[in-house]
Every structure is written in C-alpha cells, then in structure tokens.
C-alpha cells in the first residue's frame, strides 16, 4: 500500500479556499456579464428608438423655429396663425423628448443594477423595483413573442445584495424566455410570506423533462446547445439565493404546462453585528 499524501498544512487549506472563493466570484461576475451580452441586441433596440426620436425632434424643432421667425417677421394674421401651429408642434415634440429620455434612463437604470459593487454592499431595497428594472433589460428580447405579466404584491424593504439577486431574476427570466418556443407568457409574482419574500417566475414553456429535474442546479448541466447554455446560471443562482442570502430556490415543472421557479429570500439578514433581531433564518 502506498503512503497517503500528507495532509496540507492549515495555512495551505486557507489559501486554497480563498483562491477557490475568488475564482467562484470571478466566474459568477463573468457569467453575469455574458448573460447581459446575450440581451444586448434587444437592449440596443430599446435605446435606439428613443435616440432616433430625440435626434429627429431636435432637427424638426430647429426648423420649426426658423419658420416661426419668418412668420413673425411677416406679421400678417395668416403668418401668425402658422407660427402658432408650429409652436404647438414644438411643444408636442418636447413632450415626446421627455418620454424618450425617461425610456433611455429606465434601460440604463436596469443596466446599473448589474454593475459590479462591493460584495459587502448589503442594503435594504424594494425588490419589486429591482424586478421591474431587470424586466426592462429583457423587454426588447421578449417583446415580439412573449408577454410578461407582473403581479407584484406589497413588499417591505428587503435586506440583500441587490445586484446579485437581480442576476438571479435575469437568469431565470432568460431561461424562461429560451424555454418558450414561439409565443408564450411569463408571469412574475411577488408576495410577503411571514419574515420572507416569495418571488415566483412561471413560464408557459414545455416544462423540464423528468430525467433532467434532479440535475438542473448542478454546475455544468445544460440542455441548451453549445454557445447558448453554459450550465452555470442556475448553479450560481442557487448559491446566491441559498448560501449568500439564506433563502431557498426551488422549482416545479409539468410536461406541457411550463415551469415555475420559487425564490424565497429573508426580509432581514442574520447579522450579529447589526444589533437587530435575526431575520428569516433560524
């Protein structure tokens, strides 16, 4: 019998663990960026319409002002009436510009929720708002074939790493969108349940095959073609919800009837230093 390898020194174990954690964080970050990358075409479409509109309006307003000037110089009643009409046009275009700017700001806000922040950035957020921001990112990708219905109940502020939970929402939404072939529907529902928040994301896709169900949270497992699926999304999501937040991530699926994911997150995180009563975890 050969001699077993000597046990690594405690220092080495610590160093290795730190390295593994660092790599896992890096992988999770890269995965997040990749999932946004896949949505990019839709996001670009969402931004290009309002930009096109603003640029066009700007030109029309300048042209209209030139004509107003000419009309004012003319001074006769017919010219003045025309000038009045042009002012009306400018006013309605300014209103359109405002809507267009708000639309761009919404998409940017959605992207901002994914920006890299300190992992220690635990704060209280409105999860309904976060979900709506995330849906702004999938809107372009989904809108020609998937209707998204939201049923967002009243929620207390939830203490969490918002950017990480957004990644979970985005990941499950993108999966749901990919599961649906052709036209379909995704329903997002939020409720408070005691000391936790329960978020469900359901799709009308074909459901997960019974033989795949035990494996879907395993790292590297995917049913998608190479280049589309990495097999990382759900394993990262489970880690974020369960290990980082002390919540739970489960699903139910029925062949032909679609899949529903259940995300449960405690309203308050269990922290000794916070001096608050412990939250959902016991």
């Amino acid at each position, binding site marked *: 019998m050969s001699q077993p390898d000597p046990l690594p020194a405690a220092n080495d174990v610590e160093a290795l663990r730190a390295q593994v954690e660092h790599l896992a964080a890096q992988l999770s970050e890269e995965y997040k960026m990749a999932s946004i990358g896949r949505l990019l075409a839709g996001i670009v479409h969402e931004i*290009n319409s309002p930009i*096109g509109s603003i*640029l066009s309006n700007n030109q029309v307003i300048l042209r209209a002002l030139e004509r107003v000037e000419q009309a004012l110089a003319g001074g006769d009643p017919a010219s003045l009436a025309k000038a009045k009409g042009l002012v009306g046009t400018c006013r309605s275009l300014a209103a359109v510009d405002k809507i267009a700017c708000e639309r761009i700001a919404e998409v940017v806000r959605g992207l901002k929720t994914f920006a890299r922040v300190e992992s220690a950035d635990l704060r209280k957020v409105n999860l309904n708002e976060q979900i709506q921001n995330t849906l702004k990112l999938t809107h372009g990708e989904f809108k020609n074939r998937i*209707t998204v219905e939201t049923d967002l109940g009243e929620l207390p502020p939830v203490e969490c790493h918002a950017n990480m939970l957004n990644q979970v929402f985005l990941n499950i939404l993108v999966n749901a969108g990919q599961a649906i072939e052709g036209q379909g529907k995704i329903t997002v529902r939020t409720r408070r349940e005691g000391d936790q928040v329960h978020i469900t994301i359901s799709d009308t896709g074909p459901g997960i095959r019974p033989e795949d169900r035990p494996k879907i949270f395993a790292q590297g497992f995917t049913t998608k073609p190479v280049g589309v699926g990495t097999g990382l999304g759900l394993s990262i999501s489970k880690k974020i919800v369960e290990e980082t937040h002390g919540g739970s991530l489960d699903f139910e699926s029925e062949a032909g009837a679609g899949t529903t994911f259940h995300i449960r997150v405690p309203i308050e995180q269990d922290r000794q230093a916070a001096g608050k009563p412990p939250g959902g975890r016991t």
Partner: protein
Amino acid sequence: MSTNQKSSVLIVDDEEMVITSVRAYLEIESEFEVHGFTSPEEAAKYLESNLVDIAVSDYLMPRMSGIQFLHRAREIQPEASRVLLTGHADKQSAIQAINQVGLYQYVEKPWENEQLLLIIQNGIERAKLLRDLRAKVSELDTAHSSLKNVQKRLLQAFL
C-alpha cells in the same frame, strides 16, 4: 390611380414616439399624407382598403414582426415600396428582410432625417411608376385585344 393625388406614407412602430417624430418631420418637410400605426395588425387592415405608396415598418414589435408585416403588405399592395426601420443590431434580420419581403430599403435607428426623406421620396416615385406601368400594360392589353377583334372582323368581312 391618378398621380396628382397626395402621396401616402404608412408608418408602423410599436413606439408611438417614433411615429410622432417621423410624422412631425414629414409634415414640416413634405406634402405627404402620413398614417401611423402602433399595431401591425391594424396597419395591415388599413392597407386592405387604402392605397399607400410606401410602408415603413419597425422590426421588433409584439405579436407581429416587421418582416411578417411587410410580407403581408406585399401580398395586399405589391406596388407599395417596403422599408424596414430598425434598431435591432442584427444583420441577419436585414438579410432575411431583403430576401423574404423584397425590401426596398433597410434603415437603421437612430435614423438620419434627410436620408429617410430621400428614401421615402424615391420609394414613393418607384411605387407610382410601378402603378403607372401596370396601368399602361393593362391599357395595352385592352388595345391589343380590341385590335385583334377588329382584325378578326376584317378577315371575316373579306373572306
């Protein structure tokens, strides 16, 4: 179809703001009649009973894509020019559109007003020429068949 009638432009985009902007520009720079729809289904219905010279459509829309809509437009009014106005950064959709719906032009958002106006003017002219050509061909057909009739009667009279 008489040529002195106002040229008619159909714009389909699920974003009301795009329709408003294009309409404002065309109203200030041209004499075209602009008909805007946020629903491609309603636009298709409009095409069934109203003649247009050019149909400008967005690509990504709920329920019906721009390609599906322009395909429908081609069936209803084949002479009307078809333009895809899209913010979708995807050349695949452009190729698909050109091949499947006989696209006249592909314009990317954000668009340049002058370029769009030029495309619309040329597209309208193209549609009118096609309609004139069709009318001339059918006139020729009628003239040809009446000539044939005359020839037949002449032959009958002499033989």
